[in-house]
């Protein structure tokens, strides 16, 4: 790893990190701030939810308790929107951290320095990991503070922790797919569209498979299937095996990405 490159990479992504952190922090606080008023109306909404077709409630990860328990309420948003927001930042950063230099022609500057492609790749991945962890912990910390203010006292912290461990697993996995994407695709503008597509797509794949038994197999294709957010399940716990498998897969993806990168021609 090269410290000069690592720190420059962090600096170059600083603005994006701040922007996305503000978005995620704002969104997290907003959800938790809404909860007390939702809880008052909770019973009415719960009745309404019961009238919805079962397929829809299942797909959205809702049940009656969603509206009366703070952690249940938060989990429906965390499981998709917050993962999506965090994922957009980390995955598109993963997709651009190497490819932007190729697009701008600066890879010529970088790759004529006395460092190997392995060092370049490793340093960039180290920066990417750092950025991912920073925004992840900022969001987690915000959520903890939000729960302390708006949670109404009885917060299920262990469910909170499990949910956030699952979240980190998903975000880390999606981030590696961003790196892989950038080895093969060169979008004109940016990777945002593809990234949103991948994360939303895999979420809905899982949602559809839950709602309709006949296409249950579709769920196996989605990482969301393996790391659940249904915190109100009585036996909700960390799926260590899924985490291990997903992170190993992420490692394989990075390894493969590097093998593509190491043989790449850099044209002027």
């Amino acid at each position: 790893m090269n410290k000069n490159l690592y720190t420059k990479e962090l600096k170059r992504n600083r603005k994006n990190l701040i922007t996305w952190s503000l978005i995620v922090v704002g969104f997290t606080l907003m959800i938790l701030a809404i909860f007390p008023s939702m809880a008052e109306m909770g019973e009415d909404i719960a009745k309404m939810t019961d009238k919805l077709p079962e397929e829809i409630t299942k797909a959205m990860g809702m049940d009656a308790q969603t509206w009366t328990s703070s952690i249940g309420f938060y989990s429906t948003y965390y499981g998709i929107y917050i993962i999506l927001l965090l994922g957009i930042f980390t995955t598109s950063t993963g997709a651009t951290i190497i490819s932007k230099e190729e697009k701008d022609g600066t890879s010529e500057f970088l790759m004529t320095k006395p460092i190997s492609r392995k060092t370049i790749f490793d340093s960039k991945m180290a920066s990417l990991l750092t950025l991912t962890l920073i925004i992840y912990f900022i969001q987690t910390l915000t959520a903890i503070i939000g729960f302390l203010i708006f949670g109404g006292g009885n917060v299920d912290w262990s469910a909170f922790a499990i949910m956030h461990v699952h979240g980190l697993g998903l975000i880390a996995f999606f981030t590696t797919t961003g790196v892989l994407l950038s080895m093969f695709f060169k979008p004109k503008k940016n990777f945002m569209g593809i990234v949103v597509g991948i994360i939303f797509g895999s979420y809905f794949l899982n949602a559809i498979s839950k709602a309709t038994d006949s296409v249950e197999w579709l769920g196996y294709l989605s990482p969301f299937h393996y790391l659940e957010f249904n915190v109100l399940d009585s036996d909700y716990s960390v799926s260590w095996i899924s985490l291990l498998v997903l992170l190993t897969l992420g490692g394989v993806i990075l390894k493969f990405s590097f093998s593509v990168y190491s043989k790449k021609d850099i044209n002027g």
Partner: protein
Amino acid sequence: MFAIQTNKLSKYYGAHLGIKDVSLEVKEGEVFGFIGPNGAGKSTFIRALLGLLIPTSGSGKMLGLDIETQGHLIRESIGYLPSEVHYYDEMSSRELLEYHSKFYGEVNHAEIERLAEHFELDLDKLITDLSFGNKKKCAIIQSVLHNPKLLILDEPTSGLDPLMQNRFFELLEEQNKKGVTIFFSSHILSEIQRMCDKAAVIRKGEITAIEDINALMKKQMKKVRFVFGEKPKDLVLPEGVQNEHWHNLKLTFEYVGPIHILIDWMATLDLADAVLEEPDLESIFMNYYER
């Protein structure tokens, strides 16, 4: 030890030829020219040397190290000046030069200042606000800042005004005196003539000639122009005269052969004026280009 040594280095982009079987040897301390028209493969060769392109076949060494497996060690001692400069827009020249320096060790702030002053570059302007020529100046400074042993220059003078070109050539002479080897790629022959000891000609991806510049100039013909006082009768031209043309009292021809024979013959003539010229490198190399 050779500064650059390649053995049948080839690069294909799919079926498209970049360079084919390029074998070159550049001695340490030499100023070596690399001439060829646009698209001949000059940049492809340089990019393969630097590890930006992965060669299809063949091998190469720079400063005794393998270009494919030991590239990062080689690049410690190499200064590279690209033909088109692409830098990080959001940085200033100063930031860029400091970032560059940190890959090699400590930042030499005094040297950055000195060179920036020499080339009249405003260090605090953002790269994105620099003109093509000013970016080039920044790239020139960058190429020598870490005291390289070998300078690789790809069309180095494009974008520089004549004053800056001169300062740049002075810098190169200064570097070469310190023992730095210079590999100078260009399609501008007068530059090669000014700087280089030796030059290779590349055309359609293949080396067509490697020549010693001085020997080449000496070996070659002279351009001769005589003006006679009055038109001589029964003039016998010595051997080695070719392409003679009369225009009133003016005779022009090309001469290939020992110079004293020409001078002895001149002494017997009634001349009002005489001009002996070296042909420029351009006309010599046109042969290679046109082949």
